[in-house]
């Protein structure tokens, strides 16, 4: 059973100056400010402690210090602790190391902030659009504070999502969208060989 103090000590011993600050307003919540260069290592360290990846949060902090903030959140389930690793990158070069190669579930969160905040993730295995419409103009990042909430860029034609390459000898079957009024509509392109599914996008 780890306590917040144990987690702090382990991180501090190993990463020293790359950990800038700890904050724990409650005995179950730990916020850690990590230097951007070590964010992938520290994330893996938390996983090694038994952490489970939850979600990443990206936010616009341009007005305060010209940075984009990124927070990777983890849960230590057996210890009742949430660990939030906070980092930031300057807005003119918002590049982070992707944690997706180690933690595949971070893939969507990172793609979301590529779309919404214009962040870049080095080493992301599939840096495709996730959220924005296929015809959304490049260079407008709707979650930045400068973009008004009701902005409606004009529609464009001749743009379409590029599917992943189907495996050799497979047939592609697009499925969807599921009902668009519900909160989890999704398109699948299913690659089948006969009736057996070989992959999907």
């Amino acid at each position, binding site marked *: 059973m780890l306590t917040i103090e144990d987690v702090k000590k382990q991180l501090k011993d190993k990463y020293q100056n790359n950990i800038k600050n700890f904050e724990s*307003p*409650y005995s*179950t*919540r730990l*916020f850690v400010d990590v230097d951007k260069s070590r964010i992938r290592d520290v994330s893996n360290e938390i996983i090694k402690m038994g952490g*489970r*990846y*939850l*979600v990443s*949060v990206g*936010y*616009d902090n341009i007005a305060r210090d010209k940075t984009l903030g990124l*927070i990777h*959140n983890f*849960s230590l*389930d*057996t210890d*009742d602790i*949430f660990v*939030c690793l*906070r980092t930031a990158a300057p807005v003119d070069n918002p590049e982070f190391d992707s944690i997706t190669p180690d*933690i*595949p*579930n971070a*893939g*969507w969160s990172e793609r979301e902030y590529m779309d919404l905040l214009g962040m870049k993730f080095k080493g992301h295995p599939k840096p495709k659009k*996730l*959220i*924005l419409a296929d015809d959304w103009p490049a260079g407008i990042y*709707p*979650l930045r504070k400068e973009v*008004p*909430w009701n902005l409606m860029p004009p529609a464009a034609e001749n743009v379409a999502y590029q599917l992943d390459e*189907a495996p050799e000898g*497979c*047939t*592609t*079957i*697009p*499925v*969807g*969208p*599921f*009902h*668009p009024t*519900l*909160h*989890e*509509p*999704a*398109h*699948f392109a*299913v690659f*089948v060989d006969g*009736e*057996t*599914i*070989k*992959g*999907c996008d």
Partner: protein
Amino acid sequence: MVHRGLEKLCQTQVTYNEIPFIAERICGICGSVHATSYSQAVELAAGLKISRRAEFIRTIMLEIERVHSHLLWLGVAGHLIGFDTVFMQAWRVRESIMWFGEKLTGNRKTYGMIVAGGVRRDITPELKDELLGVLKTIEKELITIHKAIAGDGSIHRRTKGVGCITTEETKLWSLVGPVARARGVDIDTRRDHPYAAYDEMQFDVPVVDSCDVWGTVVVRILETFEAIKIIRQALDKMPGGPIMTEFSEDIKPLQHAIAAVEAPRGEVVHYLITGEENRPERWRVRAPTYPNLQGVPAMLLNDQFADLPIIIGSIDPCFSCTDRVVRVDVRSGTMTHLTNSDLEKISRAKKFAGR
């Protein structure tokens, strides 16, 4: 993916206490979990401790939601594999709790009960008695359904060994909720990070290691019984007191808070950074389908196409309808359109089940 821009809207247009109602509309089935999770994040950021009675009522609302959501899923799952008797019976049983929800809150779903600081309506002694009666009926009828499902060969053949992924893969992909618990991952936010009144509740977390769709059926049915157990305990132990706690001062800007709630589909996470104009600077919602849907490709691999609806359905992604399917034969370049009902026919008429 459709993105509705809720986070942007709430960061620019509305105030703290309007957001619970928007949060509730994130999901049409399990709205209270989002309102609760958001409210808890605001309360943590503000350092507000709400009344114990409000926490008990929140617990009861969350569990009522779990009962109706799991029964809904059971019906949908039955429908997807062509077993409409399960669908009709599960939804018939579910109806009584929907009526109770309407009596208690004015709505069958999307209760509008939970706000930052507490809840909006109290549970009176009369309502308490009625709820106990409703639960008794549901429990009795669900036992019958459970037995029927457990003894039915065709359900076994359609769900066992379908949508398999290993426990290690499940952990690697950080899957949550019944999807993870059906694959031997013992996590449940209610027990691991207790919130509301769950610290006082005695309940089991059903975990099975069959690693397939059958496991999710078992986990969800057992969880429904646990939910009934929790509601009974909460009604029994509920203390008196106010249901709302006022915020005594303004919420300080730039406070970070994270709160998680176990929804019927898995764990919901809300991250909040407080802002200056009586609204959040940043509010991030993670619904359970967000991680779970990312694990679906692994579950689909090397399964039959006719099993696709039930595998996707097994994560309970509010799978309401498959509008259309286009079949493209890459070798000849021909395209065939399949409608929703065609796809359903393929799935429901699947022969040689059990391979």
